[in-house]
């Protein structure tokens, strides 16, 4: 070899050594832990050099459909929406769909720029509708022949609730109220602001909503402004909590705190108890921290950011707060880590005997875990008003055996006539699951 060739070889060898050194850090598959129910196994915290990311690889549905249990059928009742998130079944059977995309969180670190580009690959590319779309099946044949805009020019609407003739919509920055009359297909006027909601940064922008059984109060779930305080504690004022808002005056108080991202709220039929699904923190490992379904106690503190699942201290929060850790309530029911529960609805006997008593939970699916989890709607069986038993898959197949993701469930609503409505914000579709006529599951 010539001298020049030798020199080039040395230079190239050094360059290759760098490349190999960088490539040599990747994680394997996470062990599957039984993380369902009241007492999930919690492994040690871990965080390697690179987070273990498995981003959804979107593909069109084609002839495929989500899978449902025997005795049930599923069909798409609306497509081509502007990112549907939550749905509300109105008394006459019409369905309202909240569509939009919110959040204005600035990218603070190089990591934010890299991660947001990667994560965007797993989401829809369409623009958010910032509107409510009304779907109507006038003749009851299961085809929703009317699809019309009920209200537009909203700001990332998410939570929906109807109290009598008041239709409440939780925008990302305010709780607003429309007048609603049975059968109406278009809002007659711009909405009235009930109260402004915390909206600075809006790292977690979704504002979930439920009305108390008597309609006197509205509950709004407000997500944290960070994964785990990396935007500073001052950004977390009035965040990671559920507000109780007086419907008449718009006055509010913190109803429960320490709920990292309460993405959906529901009032339990019969008891009137408020329940929530909560998305827990990331970057502590593939099996930490479990997302959960819990009854929300008035005045309760559920741990975020200081601890998780009771008294498990999160060392990433500095300064720490041992008193808050000691006060943290253990949630009721673990749904599993990173499933990203974004919807919850209590079932009714109209859904069939096997699924009569319990709650449906829409799981958007993980992005930082291998193998991925979620990407389905599960049914959490209840007994005597409490969760009892492992979750059962109710709508699955959003992530196919071929590794492609065709849909991602968000909000779920139970139609009292015996149907589950599922909003899918990847394929921008509303799915409706019904019992097959003539079967008694």
């Amino acid at each position: 070899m010539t001298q020049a060739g030798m020199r080039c070889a040395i230079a190239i060898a050094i360059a290759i050594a760098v490349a190999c050194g960088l490539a040599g850090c990747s994680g394997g598959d996470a062990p599957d832990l039984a993380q369902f129910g009241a007492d999930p196994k919690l492994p040690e915290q871990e965080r390697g050099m690179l987070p273990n990311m498995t981003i959804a690889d979107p593909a069109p549905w084609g002839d495929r459909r989500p899978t449902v249990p025997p005795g049930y059928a599923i069909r798409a009742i609306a497509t081509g929406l502007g990112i549907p998130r939550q749905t509300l079944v109105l008394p006459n059977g019409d369905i309202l769909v909240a569509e939009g995309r919110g959040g204005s969180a600035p990218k603070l670190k190089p990591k934010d720029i890299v991660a947001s580009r990667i994560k965007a690959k797993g989401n829809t590319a369409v623009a958010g509708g910032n509107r409510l779309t009304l779907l109507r099946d006038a003749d009851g044949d299961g085809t929703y022949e009317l699809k019309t805009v009920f209200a537009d020019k909203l700001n990332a609407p998410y939570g929906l609730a109807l109290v009598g003739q008041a239709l409440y919509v939780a925008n990302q920055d305010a709780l607003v109220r429309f007048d609603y009359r049975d059968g109406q297909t278009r809002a007659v006027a711009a909405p009235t602001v009930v109260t402004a909601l915390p909206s600075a940064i809006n790292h977690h922008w979704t504002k979930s909503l439920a009305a108390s059984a008597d309609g006197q109060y509205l509950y709004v779930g407000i997500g944290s402004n960070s994964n785990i305080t990396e935007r500073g504690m001052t950004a977390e004022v009035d965040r990671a909590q559920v507000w109780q808002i007086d419907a008449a005056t718009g006055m509010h108080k913190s109803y429960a705190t320490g709920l990292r991202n309460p993405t959906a709220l529901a009032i339990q039929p019969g008891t009137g108890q408020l329940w929530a699904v909560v998305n827990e923190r990331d970057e502590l490992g593939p099996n930490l921290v479990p997302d959960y379904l819990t009854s929300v106690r008035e005045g309760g503190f559920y741990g975020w950011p200081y601890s998780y699942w009771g008294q498990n201290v999160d060392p990433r929060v500095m300064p720490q707060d041992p008193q808050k850790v000691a006060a943290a309530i253990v949630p009721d029911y673990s749904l599993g880590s990173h499933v990203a529960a974004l919807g919850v609805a209590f079932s009714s006997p109209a859904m069939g005997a096997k699924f009569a008593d319990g709650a449906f939970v829409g799981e958007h699916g993980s992005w930082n875990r291998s193998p991925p989890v979620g990407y389905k709607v599960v049914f959490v069986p209840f007994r005597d008003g409490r969760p009892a038993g492992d979750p059962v898959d109710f709508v699955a197949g959003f992530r196919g055996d071929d590794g492609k993701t065709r849909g991602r469930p968000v909000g779920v609503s139970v139609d009292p006539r015996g149907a589950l409505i599922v909003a899918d914000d990847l394929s921008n579709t509303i799915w409706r699951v019904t019992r097959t006529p003539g079967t008694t599951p």
Partner: protein
Amino acid sequence: MARPAAGEVNDADASMRLRTFTVDQALRTCDARGREYMSLTHDGIQRSPAENGPKPRERNMVVGQIRMHPRPVGRFHAFVLAAMVPLFLGAWLCDFAYWSSHQIEWSNFASWLTAGGLVFGAVALLCALVDIARAGARGASLTLALLLLVTWVLGFINALVHARDAWAVMPTGLILSVIVALLACVSAFVGFTHLRAGAMS
């Protein structure tokens, strides 16, 4: 080895050519560099060329040799090498500020400064590798390349550590920032000591 005649290039060593020079040549070289003409006359009296240069008969005396680097350090290489240092030093200071104040913004600053240091560090490393490819891996040029390599790899690991949320950066991030900043300083010292256009011998 016989001493070559004035102005003759000794090509036996292609990577580090020796060039003899006369007082006159030395004066011109030194003047071009804006340096003072010192200690080159046979009487040992220091004179500045502007006020009192050597006598005419002294002008053709061979007074020494210049080690000619075949490709003097480029201004570009010097610039990126110098630019890397304050960025990594800044990251260290910002990490220390976060460590002592718990104010998250310092950690964000440290992340960006580390990223900036990596950009300039990568270019400096590339320049060093090109030098090796052209002139061979020997002595200080190899030391510089290896120093820059270690600085960059540790800096990159530090950037990944800084991608963690909040206090999860600590204490690893601070420790790595200190090491990387010190390595960057040493790299720059080695670079500027070695990579000059010519050194008297």
